[in-house]
């Protein structure tokens, strides 16, 4: 089936914020499909609509026009309950601020999506995911006892634990130092390679984009360019050109 190839498809998606004179066209007729098992980076100047693209693709934001399909289903007009089910089973999120629940341990944070979905978290599953992000020995730590890079890896483990069809990441390395950023990027690469994890990532970091399979460039709400497996240097040059 077509959808197994592209778990996320956007067709003619437009998103307008505000009304009248104050209206902002954050996305303007975007057509894009994200192939299964691939890692796509989205880049562009600040305010170009990257986050909006991600939120619309994940069903967090309603689109003004166009359709969004996630794992075959049209979510353009989905109800809250349908979107909740989607978040539980098909979608994982990782973000710039790691958004862990401060009162829970790493292990409990990772198990949270399973528990919310009403499933009994299998300890071994949870440990396996924490192991995969290299934090098996930190599972009883709370977020404030972990470094930024470690917290981000816990957040990725939390996103991965439900084995989602798509992982959405908005500037996952944005708040990290170079070393921690590299570790997180390597982790995401291995998720794609070993598990075939479809990943959509917004980033400002050319090195992170270079690790992805392809990079889309957004400007004023439109996709203006795309590069397949570019080098860090190529990405940086393209971005610099856009930001001028």
């Amino acid at each position, binding site marked *: 089936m077509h959808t197994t190839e592209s778990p996320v498809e956007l067709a003619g998606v437009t998103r307008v914020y505000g009304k009248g004179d104050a209206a902002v066209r954050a996305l303007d007729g975007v057509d894009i499909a994200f192939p299964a098992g691939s890692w796509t980076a989205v880049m562009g100047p600040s305010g170009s609509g990257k986050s909006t693209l991600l939120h619309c693709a994940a069903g967090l934001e309603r689109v003004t026009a166009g359709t969004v399909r996630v794992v075959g289903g049209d979510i353009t007009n989905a109800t809250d309950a349908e979107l909740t089910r989607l978040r539980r089973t098909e979608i994982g999120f990782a973000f710039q601020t790691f958004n*862990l629940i401060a009162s829970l341990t790493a292990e409990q944070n990772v198990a*949270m999506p399973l528990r919310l979905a009403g499933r009994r978290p299998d300890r071994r599953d949870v440990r396996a995911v924490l192991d995969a992000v290299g934090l098996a020995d930190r599972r009883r730590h709370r977020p404030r006892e972990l470094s930024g890079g470690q917290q981000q890896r816990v957040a990725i483990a939390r996103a991965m634990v439900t084995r989602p069809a798509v992982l959405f990441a908005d500037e996952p390395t944005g708040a990290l130092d170079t070393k921690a950023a590299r570790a997180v990027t390597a982790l995401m690469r291995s998720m794609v390679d070993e598990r075939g994890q479809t990943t959509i990532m917004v980033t400002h970091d050319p090195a992170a984009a270079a690790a992805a399979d392809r990079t889309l460039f957004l400007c004023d709400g439109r996709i203006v360019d795309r590069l397949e497996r570019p080098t860090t240097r190529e990405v940086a040059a393209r971005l610099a050109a856009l930001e001028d």
Partner: protein
Amino acid sequence: MLLLAWNSFRDRWQVFAGAVLTVCLGTALVQSSLLALVAAATAPVPDHLAPEDALALQGAYDGAVTLLSMVLALAAFTAVFIVASTFGFTVAQRRRELALLRLTGASRGQVRSLLVGEAVLLGLAGSALGTVLGLPVMRAQTWILERFDFAPTGFAAEWRPWAVAVSLGTGVLIAVLGVLAASRRAARIRPQEALREGAGAAQVMTFSRWAIGLVCLAGAAVLYVLFPGGGAPLPVWFIQLTPFLVTVPLVVGCSALAPLAVPLAAGLLALVFRGVTGELALSNLRSDARRSAATAAPVMVLFALTAAIGGTLATVGEAGRQESLRTVDGELLVAADGPEAGIADAEGVAVVSAQAEVLFELAFAESGASWYEAHYGLAVDPAAYAATHRVEPVAGDLADLAGNAVAVSPAEGREREWKVGDTLRVRLGGEESEVRIAAILPPSVAGPEYLLPIGLAPEGTGPWEHVVRLDEGADPAAAAAHLAAFGSVTTAEESVDAAAAEDERFTRDTMIVLLGMTMLYTVIAIVNAVVIAASNRRREFAAARVTGLARGQVVALAFLESQAVVLIGLLLGALAAAASVLGAAAALRVITGTTVVAVQWPLLFGLALGAAAVVGATSLVTALSATRTPPIRLVAARE
């Protein structure tokens, strides 16, 4: 879900400690009022007492029951109100955390049950503590009741085993009721609020806020219009209930609409607050209208209830005082143990009316049931009474007030149907007999409600009061000197003023009994709200300091904000109270024909200054402690 509830409970204990405290104190207060009420309602009246004494004792217990029902109602209302606003507030402060849960797959129902789960935990913890704390509170309450003569000496409430179940149930129920509205709001938090800074600035004036606010305002307005009663006089005891009928719904309505008052108050304060700190304080106030409104809520309830109950009672008292002054047509009053016949013959005395209060019971029988109602009547000589009081019967003639006849000033609905010539069954001095209604008196605030001929007064009635009208041109001072032989002499004004002073004392005592504990509770809630608000602002304060504000400026900022919040609370509270006092005045006007409004300015100013001082001091302390850490550590701190 329960684990998460427990975890978030354990981790945010500073915020939840405040909520537990409010539940604990609320439960203690409700439990203590309930036990005292049950004790008063079931208090035995010993058999060996004389009928009058038994009647008086029963009357004292009945009075205590009435008062304690109101204490209980106020305590329950305040507890639910305070707990609800505390919860609403903590939920508003946790939007991001709840949005994150939604993002990781929580359904709306799960967010709701998380909050309700927390509420159950809080309710259990709070009410377990409250059950224990309830005992000393109960002692204090019965002591106050006895100390101010609202309960017979020796009145004691005892702890009862079922109180534990009731208290735990009440505590959990109050907490859950309190959280229901907040949890519905929380369930509407959208997942992307976890992602976008500022997406959490949700609409403050939600539909339900509008709905609750407008329904309560409309309800109060309807009552307010009904208060003059379409021209029919209302019983005075009912008029005294206006604070409950008008102010309580207005408090709820005003607190729902409070965010609307924030920009108004900010605009007002812009005239006073100058400089960068002042401007910042006002913009903080406006930008977090919900926080401002939540902190203002306990101030509002404190001020509204005190001002409304105090003002209404004072207004009724003042209307009664003016009515008495208008009614008495005499210069002097002589108080004595027995009726003094000699006064009439004293030099300069034109006419004298001897009168004494008599406690009697009306007997009713209706559809198989029969019961007695205790009333006070005034035993008088009708001719002398008519000569010394400006009273025109509405029907009948005071001259017929002889033998087995009475005159009534109908107050209750049932009494209004009485006509001249009707017969009533009364029990007086242990004996039941039939009396005829000889005259209907106009409605009155100060009474008397019943006039009885002296012949009906039982043996030993007294003390007696003699209203004396002097001869034309007689010297009051000389007459007073003569009359001093019969008893203690005062002028009519002095006597009315003394009664009014007595009334004022009674009002004050009633307020202490009714409101004392509850108000103590709201003061703690006020401190609590300020502490909770500050606990979430460390980072905001730190950001302000990184931007260049000195620590002193940040503290000053917090202080100014706190004063603005107090002002909002006071304004809304005053509004809710004014409606009650004016409603009472309108109802009294129907009875007396004149408009009287009494406001206890010293009390209100004291209260306002006290609230400003308490909130100001708390915000200074919390802001100082929140700014102790160097700002950069907080701004850089991770989540």
